[in-house]
């Protein structure tokens, strides 16, 4: 029987053929903890009797959800994790680098064939680098810290094949929103989603990251793209590694196969309060907005900011909306700065913040009051996600966000620029 990409990765790391449904204790190549889930992971590690972390060089600590510390409690959590990193000899990137998933990718901490875990659900994003990467809870992470390994039930896979060329101002975010709307919020539960096809092959790493990032929104354990020329090119200078072949067998067995053609895809919007409630932008055009957020691990890369700036052109954002722009990492911030985007957004009336999760998870700043409406390039529009449970969050692409911020209402980006 042929193997899926996921089965290939687990088989290679285990040294013997492994198939979906089997439970294995797999070695962990890299583990990431941040300021929200990290303190509890460390506490659980201690409660398990842990003294020394199994593989400190394979652990990455960083802070991104509440940075700079927005409360004394958050500051204490940061101190607690700093002390642990120092005691254990773990790499601590602290508040310096940005959103965990972007940083893990750009530092080369995830590479083809590796098994990577993170104490954050959007860890599935590193599948864009051809890794098997998945989000875990703090107690599982405590186990990983103690043993450098974790139980996995090797998941079945959903194969998503994408063809066609994107129309103007339509891209990876519109695609993944459309797929999520089709598959549903639990349509890929417990499964790995393999993205393949000509459109994925032609997509840059930024777009692949956007797609893999949202696999969890369909219940997926991870999203993956088989490493190709684009992947290996991206890894150059980030990771010393010789390229090798890693792809699913033609006769691999899939739990589900889907195919999509993006040729006629319209800009997509997820409406409150579920990520799979997705419509063409035309259905919600004119919805008045209070806040627009361009950023997050899903869409805070330079490519995203550049497209938003292109749509914006020399206009100003509507004075009716608060526009918050957050590059997803220090590297992305620098790229935006050097390209003049930070100046452009600031001139247009936006608040450009330092790299962090920002309003995405409603824990730090940029919260919504009851009755307010936000349009966001992030990944979740759950009730209360960005503040009041009586607020509404819509999700969209950077292009749609920029066009909508110009008009002060949800707008088709093709009408603006």
């Amino acid at each position: 029987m042929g193997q899926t990409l996921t089965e290939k990765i687990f088989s290679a790391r285990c040294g013997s053929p492994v198939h979906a449904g089997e439970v294995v204790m797999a070695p962990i190549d890299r583990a990431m903890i941040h300021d929200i889930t990290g303190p509890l992971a460390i506490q659980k590690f201690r409660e398990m009797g842990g003294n020394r972390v199994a593989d400190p060089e394979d652990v990455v600590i960083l802070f991104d959800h509440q940075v700079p510390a927005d409360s004394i409690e958050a500051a204490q959590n940061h101190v607690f994790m700093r002390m642990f990193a120092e005691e254990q000899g773990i790499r601590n990137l602290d508040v310096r680098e940005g959103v965990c998933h972007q940083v893990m990718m750009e530092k080369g901490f995830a590479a083809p064939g590796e098994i990577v875990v993170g104490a954050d659900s959007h860890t599935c994003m590193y599948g864009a680098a051809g890794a098997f990467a998945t989000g875990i809870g703090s107690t599982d992470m405590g186990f990983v810290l103690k043993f450098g390994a974790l139980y996995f039930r090797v998941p079945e896979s959903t194969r998503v094949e994408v063809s066609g060329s994107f129309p103007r101002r339509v891209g990876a975010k519109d695609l993944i929103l459309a797929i999520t709307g089709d598959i549903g919020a639990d349509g890929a539960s417990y499964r790995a989603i393999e993205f393949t096809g000509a459109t994925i092959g032609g997509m840059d790493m930024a777009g692949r990251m956007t797609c893999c990032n949202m696999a969890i929104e369909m219940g997926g354990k991870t999203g993956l793209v088989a490493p190709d020329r684009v992947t290996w090119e991206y890894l150059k200078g980030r990771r010393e590694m010789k390229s090798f072949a890693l792809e699913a067998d033609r006769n691999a067995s899939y739990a589900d196969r889907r195919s999509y053609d993006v040729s006629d895809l319209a800009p997509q919007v997820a409406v409150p309060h579920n990520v799979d409630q997705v419509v063409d932008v035309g259905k919600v055009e004119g919805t008045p907005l209070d806040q627009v957020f361009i950023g997050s691990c899903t869409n805070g890369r330079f490519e995203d900011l550049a497209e938003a700036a292109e749509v914006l052109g020399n206009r100003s954002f509507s004075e009716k909306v608060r526009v918050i722009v957050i590059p997803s990492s220090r590297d992305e911030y620098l790229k935006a700065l050097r390209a003049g985007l930070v100046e452009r957004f600031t001139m247009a009336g936006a608040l450009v913040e330092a790299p962090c999760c920002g309003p995405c998870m409603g824990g730090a700043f940029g919260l919504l009051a009851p009755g307010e409406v936000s349009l966001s390039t992030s990944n979740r529009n759950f009730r209360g996600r960005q503040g009041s449970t009586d607020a509404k969050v819509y999700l969209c692409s950077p292009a749609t966000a920029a066009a909508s911020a110009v008009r002060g209402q949800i707008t088709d980006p093709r009408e603006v620029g």
Partner: protein
Amino acid sequence: MAGKKTVQKRAMATVNPPRVWKFGDHVDTDQIIPGRFLTIYDPRELALHAFEGTRDEFARLARNGDILVAGSNFGCGSSREHAPLALKGAGIRVIVAESFARIFYRNAVNVGLLPLVCGDTSGISDGEEAAVDPGTGELVAAGRKYALEEVPGFLQEIVDAGGLVEYARGLEEVTTCRKTTRSR
């Protein structure tokens, strides 16, 4: 005196039997515990904010042993373990749902909650008296019986230990890629 206490306890149990907290489909972890409370790690303190803004009475009225019953995809979203901890702090021990989101399911087992799958929960109503029959493994709600699926084999060991911390405390080392049970 001891005898009298037992009688009192039994009387209490009759007055306040465990009951159902019924929820729908796709209950996400942001609803279970909103993002602004994630600097808290104590289960009882987290429980004070469980379902804040979406079902405020839960934190006030949930009692030890109450059973949470939901539709499909319970616990979707964030990996925050604060979610099962908040439910545990509120006294919930058993969650019955038609399906669970993956990370929540595993977190629940890890912190010592019992997530059990029930094919159809639509007939179970909020406030019904309920209990899991330890003999048959069925959920009995308002006198009606509902079959529950067992936790998969490899997780049962963790359930039996009382959670992953208790399971791991006794372990000195693990053998990687030792194939264990083949689950469903």
